[in-house]
């Protein structure tokens, strides 16, 4: 049986401060999908990602990655995931090459395999010339690309991107889109959170909208766009339509 890339059932999270971040979220991402998880700031997107990647403890509920439970089989579940987090989180004193090769090491990949992979990723993402410079010297866009390279070095089946294009210029953003499209063509499942709704509309097959810790809409992009006041999508792409649906669903 083909297990979904991500299966979340009745997930709740209450932080120690008392903040209720998730209120019974259920979500399924099919294998091979390009899935957008959208929501306003503080809606619970990053908490879902944190729990899915083992960086945040859940309160109740179940999270499975390709059938492996993140609580009972964390090591197995984590082998499937590559994470590009919202914040830049590598050691600024390290070199991009070392950051990528070390990441492969944490996944048990020997250096003899990790080094050529790192070199290819650095070339593919336009970072090869900077491979031996300290990461702190990279521009904002380069740091984002380094995080993508780091997340891909162990060749994950499921890539999670938490606002990967935040603060990235338009040209670079579009080149990142092309790169991500190439990954889905190779069978990698992608979960994307973004505030650029045009980005989600262009890239994603399925979408879920979360507001105040609850999923308020979920379905194919066509189904979500059909929730627009103009009625069902007529087939022609119209930028901004998703934004209007998003505002309608999250304004309360």
């Amino acid at each position, binding site marked *: 049986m083909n297990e979904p890339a991500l299966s979340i059932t009745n997930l709740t999270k209450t932080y120690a401060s008392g903040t209720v971040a998730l209120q019974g979220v259920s979500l399924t991402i099919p294998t091979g999908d390009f899935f957008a998880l959208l929501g306003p700031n503080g809606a619970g997107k990053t908490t879902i990602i944190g729990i899915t990647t*083992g960086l945040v403890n859940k309160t109740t509920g179940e999270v499975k990655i390709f059938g492996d439970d993140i609580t009972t089989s*964390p*090591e197995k579940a984590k082998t499937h995931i590559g994470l590009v987090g919202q914040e830049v*989180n590598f050691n600024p004193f390290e070199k991009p090459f070392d950051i990528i090769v070390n990441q492969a*090491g*944490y996944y048990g990949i*020997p250096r003899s395999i990790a080094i050529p992979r790192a070199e290819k990723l650095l070339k593919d993402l336009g970072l090869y010339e900077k491979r031996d410079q300290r990461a702190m010297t990279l521009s904002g866009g380069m740091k984002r690309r380094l995080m993508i390279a780091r997340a891909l070095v162990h060749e994950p089946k499921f890539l999670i991107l938490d606002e990967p294009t935040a603060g990235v210029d338009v040209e670079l953003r579009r080149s990142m889109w092309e790169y991500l499209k190439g990954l889905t063509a190779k069978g990698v499942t992608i979960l994307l959170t973004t505030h650029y709704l045009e980005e989600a509309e262009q890239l994603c097959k399925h979408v879920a909208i979360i507001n105040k810790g609850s999923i308020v809409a979920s379905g194919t992009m066509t189904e979500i766009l059909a929730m627009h006041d103009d009625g069902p999508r007529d087939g022609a792409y119209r930028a901004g339509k998703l934004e209007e649906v998003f505002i309608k669903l999250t304004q309360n």
Partner: protein
Amino acid sequence: MPLKSTWISFYTILRKDVMRIFRIWPQTFLPSIVTSVLYFLVFGTIIGSRLGDFNGVSYIHFIIPGLVLLAVVTNAFTNTASTFFQAKFFSRNIDEILVSPTPPWVIIGGFVAGGMVRGILVGLLVLTVSVFFALPPLMHPFVILLFLILSSMIFALAGLVNGIYAKSFDGITIIPTFVLTPLIYLGGVFYSVASLPDVFKAFTLVNPIFYLVNGFRYGFLGFSDVSLSLSIAVLLALTAVLVAINWYLLRTGLGLKQ
């Protein structure tokens, strides 16, 4: 995680830390050497020359094992505490390991091994420096090696607990200042416990440094305030407790995850 992958993960954590230790050698190696030279000079040569023998050896010979151990434990502790805390608090690159399938016991092993490498290397450097002041005898080299390993491991484990649990920079400076330093100075580095009043002797017996210093001193000089087997038993028990605490913190995410 398969055994080979586990080994690679462990090696990656250790390799990264050892390269960092050597890259910033003026911060990791030099301070303990300078401090030890001052101890040897002031306590060993200047003050020690006015003191009588301790159990048949000169005062500087008596304090050399303790001063080597002082360097080992402080460096092993500081290394794991600061490395883990900085990765957790400042750059948040500890997430690189936490999102990976590396199990908690491998994370513990990697960080502790890094702390042990620094502690043992600095200890050997201090021992080398001590030769310029007094040539210490090496009565039981295997005992010296055993206590070098035990002391660096215990304090690297303790440093890791500190690094995982600390919530602010103060959290990793308070413990070395207010806990580690008193334990070291009251653990028999500069004196024999036999010379203490009974009430202070009782306090000393619950100080792990006391067992480390005495075991280490036995390896050099052939005498100790406490039996070797008791020292080893106490230190192995302490190791087991610290491993369990670290494993619990990493498994539950206490101090690490929200």
